[in-house]
């Protein structure tokens, strides 16, 4: 659909939030917790913080929880009964305060869960989320969205994009039918579009590299000392994958309590040494350098080759979270 622009006043934004909560929606929004800001389930508008560049965790867990039951079972000596977890009802979720990079990340994530085989649980969750993104007025040295086709005021992946204007009011760009429906349900809160453009209110993120150039360079860099050099400090902790909004590798594990239990889809990481280990003891990716290479190649070469979309949105979370200070931007720009 064609984008529709409106103005929404700050006080009306709070009313919009309250209307959503009253309607029984589960709202996830940035909430300060000690030194970090996390996407958390909030019920009051004043719980939400505006003071963040990006949250520490990504928003992927609203559609791809860290642990997801795929079925439960009941087992006796005579019989095994399986209950399909995709028949459960999934909550109506509003993601409030995502950044343009968070919203953009849902595109490759959704591609993965629909390529060849459709993951019905992911899709059921995805159908029920409303993505209300807020443009970035601040950035830091870890941000590089502009190098990977995104930007601080990018609308891709959002239902509505809000941008704070110099007046303190917000520009609301309504991008999807879901967003349009929200405006219709709350029409008194949305006013005629503002005179001010959004561009002057956006943070300027420097463009560090051209991702298409990186993609073409990587075709010939499989054997290269850079992988070992840049990953020497790596602890293999997997933090980078867990905070990444695009990383979707998972493990399948069973949990049992006597004759009952469930099969679970759990986050995993290509950075873990056990990830590719064969039962025989053979490991195709034996070193941390080989694992770091896989992470970069998967995001910047394999994914764009397969689906035309990079597996990185430039949010910089992996670099901020790394306890060994390994920086993805540093690796990519040094190629």
């Amino acid at each position, binding site marked *: 659909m064609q984008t529709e622009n409106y103005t929404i006043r700050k006080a009306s934004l709070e009313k919009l939030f309250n209307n959503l909560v009253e309607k029984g929606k589960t709202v996830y929004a940035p909430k300060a917790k000690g030194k970090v800001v996390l996407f958390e389930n909030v019920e009051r508008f004043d719980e939400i913080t505006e003071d963040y560049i990006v949250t520490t965790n990504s928003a992927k867990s609203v559609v791809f929880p860290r642990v997801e039951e795929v079925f439960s079972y009941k*087992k006796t000596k005579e*019989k095994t009964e399986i209950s399909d977890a995709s028949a459960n009802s999934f909550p109506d979720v509003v993601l409030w305060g995502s950044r343009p990079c968070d919203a953009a990340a849902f595109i490759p994530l959704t591609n993965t869960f629909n390529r060849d085989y*459709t993951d019905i649980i992911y899709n059921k969750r995805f159908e029920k989320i409303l993505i209300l993104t807020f443009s970035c007025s601040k950035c830091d040295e870890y941000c590089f969205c502009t190098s990977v086709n995104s930007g601080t005021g990018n609308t891709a992946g959002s239902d509505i994009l809000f941008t704070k204007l110099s007046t303190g009011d917000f520009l609301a760009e309504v991008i999807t039918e879901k967003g349009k429906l929200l405006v219709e349900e709350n029409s008194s809160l949305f006013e005629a579009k503002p005179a001010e453009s959004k561009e002057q209110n956006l943070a300027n993120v420097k463009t560090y590299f051209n991702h298409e150039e990186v993609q073409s360079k990587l075709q010939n860099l499989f054997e290269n000392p850079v992988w070992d050099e840049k990953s020497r400090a790596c602890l293999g902790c997997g933090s980078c994958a867990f905070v990444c909004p695009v990383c979707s590798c*998972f493990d*399948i594990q*069973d949990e*049992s309590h006597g004759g009952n239990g469930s099969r679970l889809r759990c986050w995993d990481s290509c950075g873990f040494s056990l990830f*590719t280990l064969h*039962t025989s003891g053979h490991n195709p*990716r034996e070193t941390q350098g080989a694992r770091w290479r896989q992470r970069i190649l998967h995001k910047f070469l394999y994914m764009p080759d397969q689906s035309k979309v990079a597996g990185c949105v430039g949010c910089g979370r992996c670099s901020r979270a790394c306890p060994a200070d390994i920086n993805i931007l540093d690796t990519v720009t040094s190629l």
Partner: protein
Amino acid sequence: MSNPNIYIPYLMRIEKIILEAPGVKTFRLKFENEQEADEFNFKAGQFGEYSIVGVGESTFCIASSPTRKGYIECTFRQTGRVTNALASAEEGDVIGFRGPYGNTFPLDDWKGKSLLFIAGGIALPPMRCVIWNALDLRENFKDITIVYGAKSVADLVYKNELEEWGNRLDVKLITTVDPGGETPGWKGEVGFVPSVLEKAAPSAENTIAIVCGPPIMIKFTFPVLEKLGFTDDNIYTTLENRMKCGFGKCGRCNVGEKYVCLDGPVFTNVQLKELPAEY
């Protein structure tokens, strides 16, 4: 009908268990649900996820031929948590199966050609599916040669079938065991698969070579095949990367731009040479 939730396994009853070798068992599995049995189809080379609910899933090929209807078979070695739990299952027990996944051996394209099967140890099961498929359509193929080796006589799997293939006039079977693995009455060869293959020197003319075995066997077998005149497009193998989902999402069998579970497990040597060596 197969479940729209791709994580849910079919329930399969173990109809028969065969002890093949120490720690190696074959299960014959039948669908609990008749409609699922009728709708189920697979082709030679495909694999599945076998599970004990409450313990977990493990990846093996379907070891029976698609020409044998009404059941599937799998052969596995007890090595980890899931395979140990499977091994303690009894006839009549119900286990889970998801599949079939992956690509297939292009048997239709091989019509009119000779087939040379080369297998080592526990890698005969993925090949047994193709062997029986070809033998059940015997008139489609010229010579069929099987070279199979294991560490010791006890480690050879499908002993009854080896005897049957050995007795058939339309199959040439060469079995071998590693030096020291022979028993007093052993009538087969003694030596490693690549050298036994080199000695037998089967013709490469109009022949497809299918190779499955441990990485070390494959490494030394390919040069022998090259010496015998096999070109890379006529050499097929299967990759056995670790997998969890089987449907291209969990990420661990990703090699270069390929997912072994979607684009494989069957690859020609031409395709293999285009992949980074991460298998």
